[in-house]
């Protein structure tokens, strides 16, 4: 049996930030991750990280307002205030740790413009900011000598007497199952992009943390709010960073028209409106026949070779590799694609969930700072601010927690039995994970995409329950224990089906259009009835319960949202 004060599940930015601060506070910390930390998906964040620095004439209040307006007014404003206030110190401390931020002429941190914001307050490292931050945080993990269980997969959370007390996990290299007892557990497992097909997300983004919490009785909140990024490649769904538009790129339709200028789109902020607005505008062009082969065009040709090579080198390579286009010379065909989950495990401002001693931070959590739509470059900030807060809080609280005993033999036996059962199914007519995942992804992308309606969402729920039935007879072809990826993918698929269901349930529940949730059958925002969060609780295998929470409003009253 393994034992730690603080066990952190996930080693992306949120998880590592939490680990470093918890270790600094003297806690015995361990991180468990199904991939090596530098393989985490925080890597893929391209554009940058937002912060309003007072000594540069920016105000945290303005950053908070832009975030709240971007959220279509269902972000909790107390949480947004914290994020905006703590952004500056978080960015500066990352610089102190060694991040090589781009500079201005005076050698100070440089900024670029980003969508949905009235001021350029996005700090960046070319167009691989996420990678630059992730690798530096991992350097600090090495420096602080934090223990990492690399390539271990978490099977379930241990809940005893109404408190979270650790996790059951499997070592992928040996196939051995271990019980890890912990006084505090922090979920930092990232997003669930693979629930959709295609998605910009990596293959590891399977909503593990959300499903682990959901199965432990913790509610998931705002799950209907799924962000479609306006500019992804058609071929493989790869992301073309918003920094392209931040640096001045245009979006055009087949006639060469900058369609963001149309009334009802965003005549003022044009390509730099919020992502939900730009995605809807682009999807409309495509749906109404003004696209090119299912895409619109991202035009960078006027930006010049020097700027592109210095500030957008990675996406230039991606466009070359996957779309066969050199963006210096021609526009890149792009379309809206699933990118980010605004919702997640419901937490308070310290990352605490409704289950004592269980915390969550980063994309898997919902504080909620993004509400109905996240601004570009707020996700990295979210991971660092709330990762740090969860780490601090969990470390302090774990010191005060009394000792407890776990019946580890029973737990071990149960999980061994579950895995044995899964592997011993020799019904070759049973479904393999690949076919179910594809079906799930395709239907989610059909019915829960940029535009939604009642009957589509209803269909999605029905089809998802059929898939859950099929999953019960799933066939795992690899019967071994060493690096059995088929087994891991099958377990992930179980998590994804749970997540998919909560998305469809929440979406059907919200009877209005707000943020990323755009219903063609209910196109208006309804503040009177729906200025609230939708929460989904799991009752048992086949039953769930929906509840609501009022939105926290401090300084900014909801108003009409125009860009």
């Amino acid at each position, binding site marked *: 049996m393994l034992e730690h004060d603080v066990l952190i599940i996930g080693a992306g930015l949120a998880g590592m930030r939490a680990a470093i601060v918890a270790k600094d506070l003297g806690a015995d910390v361990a991180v468990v991750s199904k*991939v*090596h930390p*530098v*393989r*985490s*998906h925080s*890597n*893929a964040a391209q554009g940058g990280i937002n912060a309003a620095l007072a*000594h540069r004439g920016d105000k945290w209040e303005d950053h908070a307002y832009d975030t709240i307006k971007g959220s279509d007014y269902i972000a909790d404003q107390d949480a947004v205030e914290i994020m905006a206030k703590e952004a*500056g*110190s978080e960015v*500066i401390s990352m*610089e*102190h*740790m*060694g991040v*090589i*931020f*781009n*500079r*201005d*002429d*005076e*050698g*100070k*941190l*440089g900024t670029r413009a980003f969508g949905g914001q009235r001021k350029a307050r996005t700090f960046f*490292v*070319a167009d*691989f900011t996420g*990678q*630059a931050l992730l*690798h530096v945080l991992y*350097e600090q993990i*090495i*420096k602080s000598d934090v223990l990492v269980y690399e390539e271990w997969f978490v099977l379930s959370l241990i809940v005893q007497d109404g408190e979270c007390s650790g996790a059951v996990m499997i070592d992928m290299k040996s196939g051995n199952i271990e019980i890890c007892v912990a006084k505090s557990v922090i979920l930092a497992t990232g997003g669930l992009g693979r629930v959709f097909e295609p998605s910009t997300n*990596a*293959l*590891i983004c399977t909503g593990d943390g959300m499903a682990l919490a959901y199965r432990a009785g913790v509610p998931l909140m705002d799950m209907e709010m799924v962000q479609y990024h306006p500019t992804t490649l058609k071929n*493989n769904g790869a*992301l073309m960073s918003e920094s392209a538009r931040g640096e001045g790129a245009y979006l055009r339709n087949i006639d060469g028209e900058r369609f963001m200028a149309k009334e009802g789109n965003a005549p003022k902020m044009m390509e730099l409106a919020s992502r939900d607005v730009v995605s809807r505008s682009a999807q409309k062009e495509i749906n109404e026949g003004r696209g090119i082969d299912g895409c619109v065009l991202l035009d960078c040709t006027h930006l010049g070779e020097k700027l592109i090579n*210095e500030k957008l080198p*990675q996406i230039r*390579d*991606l466009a070359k*590799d*996957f779309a*066969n286009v050199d963006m210096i010379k021609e526009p890149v065909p792009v379309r809206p694609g699933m990118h980010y989950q605004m919702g997640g495990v419901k937490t308070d401002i310290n990352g605490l969930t409704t289950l004592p001693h269980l915390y969550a931070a980063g994309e898997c959590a919902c504080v909620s700072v993004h509400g109905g739509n996240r601004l570009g470059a707020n996700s990295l900030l979210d991971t660092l601010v709330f990762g740090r807060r969860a780490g601090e809080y969990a470390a302090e609280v774990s010191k005060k927690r009394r000792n407890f005993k776990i019946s580890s033999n029973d737990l071990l036996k149960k999980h061994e039995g579950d895995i044995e059962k899964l592997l011993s199914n020799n019904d070759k007519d049973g479904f*393999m*994970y*690949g076919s179910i995942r594809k079906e799930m992804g395709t239907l989610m992308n059909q019915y829960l995409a940029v535009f939604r309606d009642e009957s589509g969402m209803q269909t999605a729920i029905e089809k998802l329950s059929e898939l859950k039935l099929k999953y019960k007879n799933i066939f*795992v*072809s*690899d019967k*071994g224990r*060493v*690096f*059995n*990826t*088929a087994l891991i993918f099958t377990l992930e698929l179980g998590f994804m089906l749970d997540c998919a269901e909560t998305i469809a349930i929440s979406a059907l529940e919200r009877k209005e259009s707000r943020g990323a949730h755009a219903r063609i059958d209910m196109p208006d925002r309804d503040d009177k009835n729906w200025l609230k969060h939708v929460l989904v609780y799991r009752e048992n295998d086949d039953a769930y319960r929906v509840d609501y929470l009022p939105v926290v409003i401090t300084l900014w009253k909801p108003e009409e949202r125009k860009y």
Partner: protein
Amino acid sequence: MKMKVEYKVKRYNPELDDTAESWDTFVVELDQAATVLDGLIKIREEVDGTLALRCSCRSAICGSCAMRINGQARLACNTKVSDFEKNGNITLLVEPPGNMPVIKDLVVDFVPFWSKVNAVDPWLKPNHPPKYMEEHIVSNESMLHLSEVMGCIMCGACVSDCTVLEVDKSFLGPAALAKAYRFVSDPRDGSAKYRLGSLEKPSGMWDCTRCMQCVEVCPKGVDPMGKIMKLRDFAIQDGYKKTYGAKHTAVFSDSVKHTGWLNEFQLPLRTFGIFNVIKLLGLLPILLDALVSRKVPPIFHHKLPSASSIQRIFKKFDL
């Protein structure tokens, strides 16, 4: 349009009774634009679920899927299958990356890789940490310069194909040395001298043989060998002149500067010193080889007539 692609994949499963390595052949239909990874995922999902490989981002940023494809380390996710078309046929030889122990199929143990990275103290040690809420003031050029090496995704392609590691497992290797360069050349780091001191020890920067393999296979343009050469320059500039590597460099350039060409006979004598019997005896097999194949360098070294033009080059670059 679909293409038929033949994958020959090297298999290894420690749990089988017969654990010998073997090759499996799979034929899959793929789109024209497909990557090697697309095909491997198709095989894994539709043909053989026991095939083990690591992959995640599909866009050359996570560094999971380095493997040997037709004899060379590459990222499967940004290598197109159509690059290997020959007379309308595509055959791919897929193996795990080299120089690391295989766990299963294409999955290798990265512990040796990371232990080398950890050995270079891979974190910033600021000279004068700035005040709270103030950043280091440095030029944009210095940061842009570092972004080349910070582009490293730790995929292990360079380590896989490093020809020195193949014969000497103790060599720090291209990835760890490139990581070290990232700190040595960071204007915010205060411990360059200490870092160079530990990198000039055996198994460090002087053990690279400049075969260029790491430069060739790096999928991110990091140029590890170039970084190792820069480290050597920094070390010599910082006064680390006593290593064989530094002496070798000095003797080499001295010979060329004065005679116009390399005095191969003197090179080991002056590098190791004529009283360093053990080292010199170690060179005997090479000398015997040279004798057998009649390639012994001349004992009496003549100055080339054109030496003066070589000297002008040295003068021009102030060497």
